[in-house]
């Protein structure tokens, strides 16, 4: 018997999903569903937009209005949706390649505009869909099918990138820390402005195998043992934080939201010609 959550938010007739056994994306999709459920959002007013990648297939499985777009462009599509219908709850699910490589430009500009969209990144540090090439978040020295001698690129901190670009809510969760991640997604949705929740996923099929880091259990155990809550991290030294992943809320500020500001433009333009 599927749980009430699955029954309500997952399109069961479109299962089985395409994800590998042990993939972290399914857990994170459930976290998104749980967050929407706990906030009791009107499902018909939720618009979920994704790009292309293993992570982005979540859009087809979730029972909202869903738009599965082109690789990297989910945020730009989402901006069109939000500007045309500011009353909708606009969510984006995308992979690390989607959001930080091909779609990096859209991420920083949407963050700069502070448009009220919530982006949930399923970050598995690899290109899953295309078979394990390195991504902009693959750690230096790790292996991938296009980094056979070790990756010499330096990785992005996506949450930090979003914050520096102007996002007014940023946070990090993981596939392992479900309760925390649900709370962060909820906060992101409630936050008025551009919010980004970077979620560490796991890709046992490519990342785990290529880097001899084991399967899903080992990768999730790593998350369990190496994450530090942001409150605690604030009191730790750089050396103490070496090799750790900081999770929890990372930043929040209150600044004018883009569609609110545009509404003022409409009032102004209409006033001049009233």
């Amino acid at each position: 018997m599927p749980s009430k959550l699955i029954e309500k938010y997952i399109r069961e007739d479109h299962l089985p999903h395409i994800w590998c056994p042990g993939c972290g994306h399914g857990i994170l999709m459930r976290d998104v569903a749980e967050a929407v459920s706990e906030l009791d959002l009107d499902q018909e007013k939720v618009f979920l937009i994704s790009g292309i990648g293993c992570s982005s297939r979540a859009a087809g499985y979730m029972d909202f209005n869903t738009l599965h777009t082109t690789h990297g462009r989910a945020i730009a599509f989402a901006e069109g949706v939000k500007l045309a219908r500011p009353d909708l709850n606009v969510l984006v699910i995308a992979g690390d390649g989607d959001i930080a490589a091909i779609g990096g430009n859209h991420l920083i500009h949407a963050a700069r505009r502070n448009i009220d969209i919530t982006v949930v990144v399923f970050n598995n540090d690899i290109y899953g869909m295309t078979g394990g090439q390195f991504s902009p978040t693959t750690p230096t020295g790790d292996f991938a099918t296009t980094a056979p001698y070790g990756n010499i690129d330096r990785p992005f901190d996506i949450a930090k990138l979003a914050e520096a670009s102007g996002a007014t809510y940023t946070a990090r969760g993981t596939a392992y820390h479900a309760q925390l991640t649900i709370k962060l997604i909820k906060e992101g949705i409630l936050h008025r402005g551009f919010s980004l929740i970077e979620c560490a996923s796991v890709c046992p099929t490519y990342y785990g195998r290529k880097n001899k880091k084991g399967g899903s259990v080992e990768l999730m155990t790593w998350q369990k043992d190496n994450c530090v809550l942001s409150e605690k991290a604030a009191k730790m030294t750089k050396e103490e934080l070496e090799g750790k992943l900081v999770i929890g809320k990372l930043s929040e500020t209150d600044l004018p939201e883009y569609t609110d500001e545009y509404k003022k433009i409409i009032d102004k333009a209409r006033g001049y010609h009233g």
Partner: protein
Amino acid sequence: MSKKVLMQGNEAVVEGAIAAGMRFYAGYPITPSTEIAEQSSVRLPQVGGTFIQMEDEISSMAAVIGAAVTGAKAMTATSGPGFSLKQENIGYACITEIPCVIVDVQRSGPSTGLPTSPSQGDVMQARWGTHGDHPVIAISPASVSECYFLAIRCFNLSEKYRTPVILLMDEIVGHLREGVEIPDHLDIEVVDRRLHTDKGHMPYEADEKGVPGWHLCGIGRYNITGLSHDVSGFPTNSNEVTDKLVRRLMGKIQNNADDIIEVQEEYLDDAETVVLCYGGTTRAAMSAVLEARAAGYKVGMFRPITVWPFPEKRLKEISSGKKVKRIIVAEHNFGQIVLEAERIVKNDCKIDFIGKVDGTVITPGEILEKIKEAE
């Protein structure tokens, strides 16, 4: 009450688009299309619509589709380099059948080329710019007045056939200033996408024309994907379903070509020579034809207003007519539409070509010279 207004071609596009119901514009500035963005930024908020300047043309096209998905009539405008960037998402709009309008004010290329010089080098890009087999409608105005009325037509066709429509302009027409007789808004025919009336319909269930109905956003929950999909809108790996989808997409334009295609014909009754032109080139062609006729030459003009789908049937009727001995194709490129003409006309008559790639315009004199050559 109609009123006569002096306008620039680019400006007229915005006014026509708003008259047709445009309420969303996303774009990135590029010469010679920039006035369309500027004018949209002024006019849209006045009518309660939204303008956004995006970070590039890829995101502009994406935002336009996003807005259109919610039901808004949406447009973007660009020129060659930006048109290239939009192509992937234009294909997305084709397969997902999201109505939207893309204006391409052509300039001289390739690459940055001569940014402020006229060209018609994007005709084949308009047809085949995005990958895969896909339907296309492209319409090319020759005057400022046509910029206004054909912008309306672009929106109407995109709504009727649920497909992106390209307003294929050129620098000549975009930057031209002429008087436009703007009709009373009640006299303007505005077409809206056909709505599915009940929830029982599958979102991609098509009518006899091959066009699916539209579900209002927020009533029911639907999936839209650029993957091959069945009538439910969900992805499929089936070759059979894919075949059906692609054939329906192509068919909804091909089978309705008579409704979509518009042409302009001048003096074809007695013409032995026919000048084939489109867009900005029409202006030089028309003066050349008039001058030649005054001098006693039996010459006419054939102009596809709808460039894609190409008015194949009509051109064949003309070229296979007994009187026509020669067709002169005049266009601002190395030879794009002339290839279509050759494919259709075959051995019916001779085809001459005037093409320019130096960024200058084809003059009436050059066409006149060609007309006289044969005699």
